[in-house]
């Protein structure tokens, strides 16, 4: 990736394993590979959508991006600076630049604290505000997410899911970050409220010039919000492309399957896999392409070797030896 001038966040060969090591009696503990080598780059001001089903490692990836978890291998760079260096210089440096919005809005608020205390924390510790300026800034933030300032003096249990998620967004904004990682920000919300939050997110992005990494299992939501989309399967990115291209002409058979499986209102007749296909065992990953066992296009080479892909900032590629919609321009 040479055209990196406006890249704000980049990961290279990111791996995260859990378990491993040895037990008390010397037996080997099983190792689970949650993330198995991920390269993604995000440009300033864009929304990168990451889509995948449960267990694909998307949440682990999200947690590593904001520093809540550390990669086993590989590294993350923020505008060219290594994340480890950034943290070792100043433990607040990372949180000032990249923030996180959680999936479950209610449980991301401390049930025994007023919203005021929750919202003041990042302003106080990351931005060093206090007194009147802190107060004024909190009002601004509540205003930005369309909540009344008197809501500051309430407890989380007094809020609906949608309101709580707006507070979660306000807290992320409080740090004045460049990037916000949104981990399934609307999947815990009712459909009629989802749209409110999605519209708010889109407005805030324009208003504050934010960069989003939007993680979701819901293809239609990702399609609606993303400039570029990466599809994850079993710890790897299997396909990445500018949004339209990926949804119009998917190359990876898994992406095709995902698109075919999503029910659309007003349409009938999903195409469904024949077999009762399942994810591979994370304790014993298959040697080649993880999707090969449930792929109708799989051939001998698929189970022998892991297919590679070159993901740039504007191209469309899939980690597949026998892709659909063969490449014409690359």
């Amino acid at each position: 990736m040479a055209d990196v001038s406006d890249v704000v966040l980049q990961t290279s060969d990111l791996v995260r394993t859990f378990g491993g090591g040895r037990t008390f009696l010397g037996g080997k503990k099983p190792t689970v590979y949650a993330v198995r080598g991920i390269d993604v780059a995000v440009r300033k001001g864009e929304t990168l959508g990451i889509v995948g089903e449960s267990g694909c490692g998307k949440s682990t990836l999200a947690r590593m991006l904001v520093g809540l978890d550390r990669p086993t291998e590989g590294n993350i760079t923020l505008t060219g600076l290594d994340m480890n260096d950034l943290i070792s210089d100043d433990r607040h440096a990372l949180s000032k630049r990249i923030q996180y919005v959680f999936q479950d809005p209610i449980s991301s608020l401390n049930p025994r604290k007023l919203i005021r205390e929750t919202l003041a924390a990042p302003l106080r510790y990351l931005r060093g505000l206090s007194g009147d300026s802190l107060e004024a800034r909190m009002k601004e933030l509540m205003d930005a997410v369309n909540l009344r300032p008197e809501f500051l003096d309430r407890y989380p249990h007094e809020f609906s899911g949608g309101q709580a998620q707006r507070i979660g967004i306000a807290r992320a904004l409080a740090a004045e970050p460049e990037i916000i990682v949104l981990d399934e920000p609307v999947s815990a919300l009712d459909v009629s409220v989802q749209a409110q939050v999605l519209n708010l997110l889109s407005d805030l992005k324009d208003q504050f010039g934010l960069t989003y990494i939007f993680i979701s299992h819901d293809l239609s939501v990702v399609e609606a919000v993303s400039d570029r989309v990466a599809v994850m399967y079993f710890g790897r990115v299997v396909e990445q492309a500018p949004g339209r291209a990926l949804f119009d002409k998917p190359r990876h058979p898994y992406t095709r399957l995902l698109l075919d499986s999503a029910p659309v209102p007003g349409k009938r007749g999903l195409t469904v896999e024949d077999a009762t296909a399942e994810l591979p065992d994370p304790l014993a990953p298959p040697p080649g392409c993880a999707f090969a066992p449930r792929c109708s296009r799989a051939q001998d080479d698929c189970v022998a070797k892991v297919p590679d892909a070159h993901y740039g900032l504007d191209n469309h590629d899939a980690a597949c030896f026998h892709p659909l919609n063969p490449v014409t321009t690359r």
Partner: protein
Amino acid sequence: MTSNTATASEIKTKKRSARPSAFKLLARNQLALMGAVILALVVLIVLITPILPLPDPDVTNPAQRLLPPFSDGHLLGTDHLGRDLLSRLLWGTRVSLAVGISASLVAALFGSTIGIVSGYFGGRTDNIMMRGIDMLMAFPYILLALAIVAALGPGLMNALYAIAVVNIPFFARNIRGVTVGIAHREFVDAAKLSGKGHIRILLTEILPNVMPVIVITISTTVGWMILETAGLSFLGLGAQPPQADLGSMLGEGRKLITTAQHLSAIPGAMIFILVMSINLLGDGIRDVLDPRLKSGALARPAPLTKIDRSDQGAGNQIADETVLAVDDLRTEFVLGDDTYKAVGGVSFDVGKNECVGLVGESGSGKSVTALSLLGLVASPPGTIVGGRVMFDGKDVYDMSENQVRDIRGGKAAYVFQDPLSTLHPLFSIGDQLVEAIRAHNAVSYRDAWAKAVKLLGMVRIPNPESRADNYPHQLSGGMRQRVGIAMALANEPRLIIADEPTTALDVTVQAQILKLMNDLRTDHGTSVLFITHDFGVVSEICDRVAVMYAGRIVEMGTTEQVLKHPAHPYTKRLIDCVPRLGEPDRRTSAIPGLPPAVNNLPAGCAFADRCDRAEEKCRVGAIAFDDLGDGHAVRCIKPMEGANG
């Protein structure tokens, strides 16, 4: 941007709920109140003991030894050395209370600190600390205290230390468990990202949430600690003469049990009263602070929902080919002073081999409707207050418990949302299928097992013979849901009630399950009532669909009618507010505000506050459910244009 209007109506609909104060709740519990009063009395008396006109508890008077109670000048009599028993009792209670409370506080301080640190940091810290605690717990409780007293020598302070030490593991374990739960909650991560350090998180995020548990643990152990220190003194290892606590008084009394029974009866009764009052109060405190108990959620649900009908439906005609006809069903929940009208008059029917969808957001009453059909709503707090459910021409709510049980899993079967929590974790799936079969057929276990294996094959579980021996936790989510479906099919039901059966599943697995259900329905001629919030799923599987809002059906028709030509503004907006695959440029228009709370429903149309077409007459009186022709009906006085047909 519609969010601005959103906040205004949200404030209106969301009643600001004040938490009932803890003391008010405690006072409501009569037993706890009794305990509190007794304890307060005892504490008050022992606090003023030094200024009471009592003889010195340690002054002996051999001439007045072993006086019975109610003697002159000695209300409770005297002991073997002629000391006044009342005075000794009060001073002894003072000592016992002080020692018990101190021991609890010491144990709570050290135990909770270990528990919080261990639970929050986890990993190696946790491992080392908890192994140490395990070692302490490897000793039978009082034995460790005995060993410590043996080493330090008998004495009241040493007994206090010993009792405190042996209770540290109890606190550490309890508090660690709670802390682990809290430390993995998202708000702790959020605090980390807000720039808080570990110490600050421990003190300001974790501790406030752990504190109630610490208080509960203290309140439930103080009584125990008083008992144990009294026990050590009773054995002669605690308070040493001439100082006395209740235990040592009892110990002395024991030696004279045949001659002067009041010497043991009185201090024993005092310990009992003290501990009992503390336990009563402790239980009360636990009930107040434990959120699960507070909501009254621990009431045991009856096998059949309570039925207390004011009417039996509108008496609508039922067509011959209907399998299920629901007529003006109303189900309510009573929680405290509030009545939640979860289902407020729902009527629909399901024909033979038909799939009817029941669509709505959370709180719309769709699941309660489904559970009400065969009386599976938990009661308390649920009650069916009106309407009838005709299954095969008979009213389910007129049936006996046994008759309803015959239908459940027999002619009508359920498939639930989360297959992990809905299957019993301790029985193999084969065993659970066998149970379902044998509940309705007198067949041998062997034959039932063979049928169970066949059923597993029917829902396309690979290697059904060996899979039948698996436990639910050994299967994936999709496989578990197949088991759930197999269980529903066990007795060839005429109707399957599927309550969000694919919501917990990934899309690719959802597609598989939907296909399976569709195939089975066609093969077996089964009718299906399908509850979901997803219009995409509805299009995939349903013939007809009913849209629910705030406990009532607002629109019903064929899937095509409702999806292509929605008549109710809510249906229209609900369909429009979801991003649709393949139409990325369509800006989704959010529905402002929130659904009304079903304990505080507005007059007129429940959607009026969120509706941009609402008029004055929408807010008065009941809105009729009007037929637009061709079976398309809507509960709206201004249905959307182009919707008739």
